[in-house]
C-alpha cells in the first residue's frame, strides 16, 4: 500500500452521486453542505428492523449522508448544542444494510469493521471523520435541525440537519483504503 498522501480539498453538496465519492482518496478534506441525517446505534437498530419487515425508512437514504451524532440540547438562541461525531464501530452491524440502500457517506470517528469497508467498495460509498470532541466547533456548521423519527430516543433521535461547510477527512475510500492504517505507518517509530 502506498504511503504517499497528497490530500485534495473538495466542497460537496448533498445528495452525493457515485462520481462525487469515487474521486475521493484517503486523507482528502471534504467540506460538506446540504441536508444530512443523524443516527446512532439505537436508531440504526430500528432502521434495520424496518428493512427486515420490508417497510420504508423514515428517510430515503439514496445518495445521502448519515452523521453519527447525539447532540447536546440547544440552549436558547441556538439551533443545536455541541454536535461532534460518536465512535462509528457501534454502527458496524447495521451500516452494510444502509449502504446497500444507496447511502453514500457516513461521518463518525474511529475504525470500521472489514464488512463495512467491503460494503463501501461494493456500493461505492465513503467513510468520513469529523474531529471527535470538537462538538462546539462543529455545531457552528449546523444551520437547521429537525427531528424526523424516534423522538423518544432523545439525543439518539433521527434528525435532518442542514449543514454548511462541515469539515471532514476521508478515512475509507471506494478503493477500500484506510487512512488509520496508512497514517500511523508514516509516523510510527519502531523501537
Amino acid at each position, binding site marked *: 500500500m502506498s504511503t504517499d498522501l497528497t490530500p485534495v480539498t473538495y466542497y460537496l453538496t448533498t445528495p452525493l452521486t457515485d462520481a462525487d465519492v469515487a474521486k475521493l482518496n484517503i486523507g482528502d478534506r471534504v467540506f460538506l453542505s446540504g441536508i444530512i441525517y443523524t443516527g446512532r446505534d439505537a436508531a440504526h437498530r430500528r432502521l434495520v428492523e424496518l428493512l427486515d419487515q420490508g417497510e420504508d425508512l423514515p428517510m430515503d437514504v439514496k445518495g445521502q449522508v448519515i452523521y453519527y451524532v447525539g447532540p*447536546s440540547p440547544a440552549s436558547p438562541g441556538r439551533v443545536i*448544542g*455541541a454536535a461532534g461525531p*460518536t465512535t462509528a464501530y457501534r454502527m458496524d452491524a447495521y451500516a452494510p444494510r444502509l449502504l446497500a440502500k444507496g447511502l453514500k457517506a457516513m461521518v463518525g470517528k474511529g*475504525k470500521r469493521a472489514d464488512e463495512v469497508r467491503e460494503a463501501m467498495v461494493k456500493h461505492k460509498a465513503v467513510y468520513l471523520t469529523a474531529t471527535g*470532541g470538537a462538538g462546539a466547533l462543529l455545531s457552528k456548521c449546523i444551520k437547521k435541525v429537525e427531528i424526523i423519527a424516534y423522538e423518544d430516543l*432523545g439525543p439518539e433521535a433521527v434528525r435532518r440537519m442542514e449543514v454548511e461547510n462541515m469539515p471532514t477527512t476521508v478515512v475509507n475510500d471506494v478503493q477500500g483504503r484506510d487512512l488509520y492504517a496508512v497514517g*500511523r505507518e508514516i509516523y510510527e517509530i519502531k*523501537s
Partner: protein
Amino acid sequence: MKEIPVTDIRNAVKELSIKANRELGQDTLDAFARYKEKETSPVGRDILDQLIENARIAREEGIPMCQDTGLSVIFLDLGQEVHLTGDLSQAINDGVREGYQEGYLRKSTCHPFTRKNIGDNTPAIIHLRLVPGDKVHLWVVPKGGGSENMSRLAMLPPSKGLAGAKELVIQTVKDAGPNPCPPMIVGVGIGGNFEVAPLLAKRALLRQVGERHSDPELAAIEEELLEKINNLGWGPQGLGGRTTALDVHLEMMPCHIASFPVAVNIQCHANRHLEVTF
C-alpha cells in the same frame, strides 16, 4: 463537629458539572500548544488547532466542548469530623439532575438492556472515602463513553512483571487507536485487586496534565510509557502523527502475592475534572 448541609454539595455538583463541560482546564490547553510545536503531521497540527478553537468557543459561548457531556463520576473525600446534614447520595444526584437540565448538557445514562434513556443523567457514580480532618473535598468528573469503552483491566500473572504491565498499557492504546479521541490522557492503576486497580487508574486521571508522580521511580515509568505511546504514530484523532497522548499518570499500591492487577483508563482530550473544598 463541623456541620455541612448536603445542599452545599448539591449546588457544587450542579455548578461544577456545567463549568467542567464548558471550560477546559489550562493544563490541557497548555499541553495542546506544547504538543502542537512538536507535531510533525500537518493534519495533526490542524486538529490540535481545531481543539484549541473548540475550547475557546465552548468557554466564550457557554456551550459544552463535546456533545458527550459524560457520565457523572463524583469523588468525595469526607473528613471524619464533618457531619453532613441530609441525604448525601440524593443531594449529589439532585445536583447532577439540575446541572444537566439547566446547563443544556446531554443526558447520557440509559437502561443497559432496553437502552431507554433515564432522562436526567442520573445515577452518578459516587466514590466516597473517609479521611481525617474537618474538610470535604469534592471532584466532579464528567467522563465520556468513547474513551471509557477503550479502557481495560487485566489480572496478569505476577511472572509478567513490570515489563508485562508496560506492554499491556501500550497494547491497550495501540488497539484503541482513533476510537477514544486522541490525544488522550492515560490513567494506569497497578496493584490493589479486581475492583481497586481501575479505581486507581481513574484517580490517576485527576492529576494535572504535565504533573509527574512524586515517587521518582513511578515518574520515570510514566515518562517511558508516554514516549512509547507517542511512538505508536496514531497522532491526533488517529490520523497519523506524534501526539497520541498528552500524558500518562500512574498510581500503584500493594496487591495479593498471587495477583498482578493492571488497569488502563483512557481519558479523551475533553479532559474534564473540577474540584472544590468545603
